[in-house]
């Protein structure tokens, strides 16, 4: 392990893991909401997955991912047009042409998520959040992954999420004759581990642990039982990846994502 690799932060390790989640041989839109997923999508585009398409965050498609924050001399060069006014027509409802990575407020064992409201009733929630946004459509039509910067039982809830904003693999939520074949949940990247939906009946499995993290620690921070399918430690980003990450995030916004911005490799206790 080189000195450079040792200096990678946990956020940078997560960016590499997000980039792996986006890996594809297809031409599809990659949408990373939030700094870590967005840099991860850009890293995937610039390294292993050139078919990925992404926008400038507003309305235009770019072949060179747009760096985060103030752009200085960087002028995005527009190669296509994908405004919200045709997003459903092109990227979502056509099916299989997008992979989104988001940070919901709650996730349950079925992969159902919530970003609408917590507690109370629909008429009077205890805490009103954003609303379901585009999650119902995203979940029924294309690939979705999640990034959770603080893995806890508040996010990975016991039972079910308070308000099912995106569809998952819950058999009780399926009606006869409905077409659920588009539901395609991929990865959950957290500050502790990487998980997928590869267990029996799409059960959530831990597939890699970040350096120094144990499966017990992950289970302890999760409100439902996880399957242990750990095959390796989550890879550290090498110098090439770190260079691309620094170019995509010149203002180091990624340093503010995970509390205290810890190093990828935990200090010895």
């Amino acid at each position: 392990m080189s000195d450079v690799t040792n200096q990678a932060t946990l956020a940078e390790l997560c960016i590499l893991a997000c980039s792996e989640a986006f890996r594809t041989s297809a031409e599809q839109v990659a949408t990373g909401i939030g700094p870590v997923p967005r840099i991860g999508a850009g890293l995937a585009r610039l390294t292993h997955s050139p078919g990925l398409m992404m926008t400038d965050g507003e309305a235009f498609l770019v072949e060179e991912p747009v760096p985060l924050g103030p752009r200085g001399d960087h002028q995005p060069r527009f190669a296509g047009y994908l405004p919200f006014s045709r997003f459903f027509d092109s990227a979502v409802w056509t099916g299989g042409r997008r992979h989104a990575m988001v940070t919901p407020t709650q996730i349950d064992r079925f992969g159902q998520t919530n970003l609408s409201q917590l507690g109370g009733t629909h008429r009077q929630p205890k805490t009103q959040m954003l609303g379901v946004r585009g999650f119902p459509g995203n979940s029924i039509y294309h690939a979705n992954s999640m990034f959770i910067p603080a893995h806890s039982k508040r996010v990975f809830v016991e039972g079910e999420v308070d308000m099912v904003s995106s569809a998952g693999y819950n058999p009780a939520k399926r009606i006869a004759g409905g077409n659920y074949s588009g539901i395609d949940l991929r990865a959950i990247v957290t500050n502790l581990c990487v998980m997928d939906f590869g267990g029996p009946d799409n059960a959530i499995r831990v597939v890699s642990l970040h350096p120094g993290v144990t499966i017990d620690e992950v289970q302890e921070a999760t409100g439902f039982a996880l399957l242990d399918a750990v095959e390796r430690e989550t890879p550290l980003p090498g110098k090439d990846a770190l260079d691309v990450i620094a170019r995509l995030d010149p203002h180091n916004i990624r340093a503010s994502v995970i509390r205290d911005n810890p190093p990828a490799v935990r200090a010895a206790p």
Partner: protein
Amino acid sequence: MTAPMLDKRMSAGEIVSQLRDGMTLGIGGWGPRRKPMALVREILRSDLKDLTVVSYGGADVGMLCAASKVKKLAFAFVSLDAIPLEPWFRKAREAGEIEVFEMDEGMFQWGLKAAAFGLPFLPTRVGLGTDLAELGGLKTVQSPYDDGEVLIAMPALKLDAAIIHVSRSDWRGNVQLLGPDTYYDEWFAKAAARTYVSCEELVDKIEDHYPQDVKANTFERCFVSGVVEMTGGAHPSSMPPAYGWDMKAFKEYAAAAKDPGDWSAVADRFVGTDEAVYLEGFGGKEAVAALPLPIF
């Protein structure tokens, strides 16, 4: 046979006087972008009440909730982007003050399209597997063809009136919507029985002034009932390419929602007695025109 009234110019007050208590009102724009805020402020200055508001919500929804103008809200989100949770909307929801019909963003535009085409509903897979159908009382429909697929029947979002802020218009309602994204404004216009537009710039005959931008005419004048010039009329939301959002104003507005969060104490600041007084409070039209476009 009388010719149609082609001169659609009216004042903001005249537009609001055509709205009625209990109406279903569509509001164009998206979150903190392209909102017809000058017309929203005119509604806030009026006695209008019990509205059903249909909006990709931002401060339009927050202010109308804060002023108790809303009976029911049809929404997919309410957000100011950089301030993700709209604070006045949040207060109204957590106090149980409004009825809601919550939808996915794509279902929302589908409902506008159903209304535009005079259909009772349009079928979609969106909503399956979520709580939306149960909470919103949505029904399903089965394909009559061999596939037999069961789909959600998204009901038409029929609007009694819509308000939209556009870049330019002439007095006949030939509009131009500039900027990188005009969201679902054209479908609000077509879903509504009457659509009122405020514009940054009003010209006499648009073909004499901006024929080169004719592709920005995203909906035709037969969908426009009234036109008023309101330069800076999207403030504090953004109106590209003319100006960006006023994040300082949004922050002040959000801070005012914190305890005790009394709207009547701050309504003067965020609504004002008239539009000139309101804009003066934020540095006037020149200051609005100088607001930089946001980067994403």
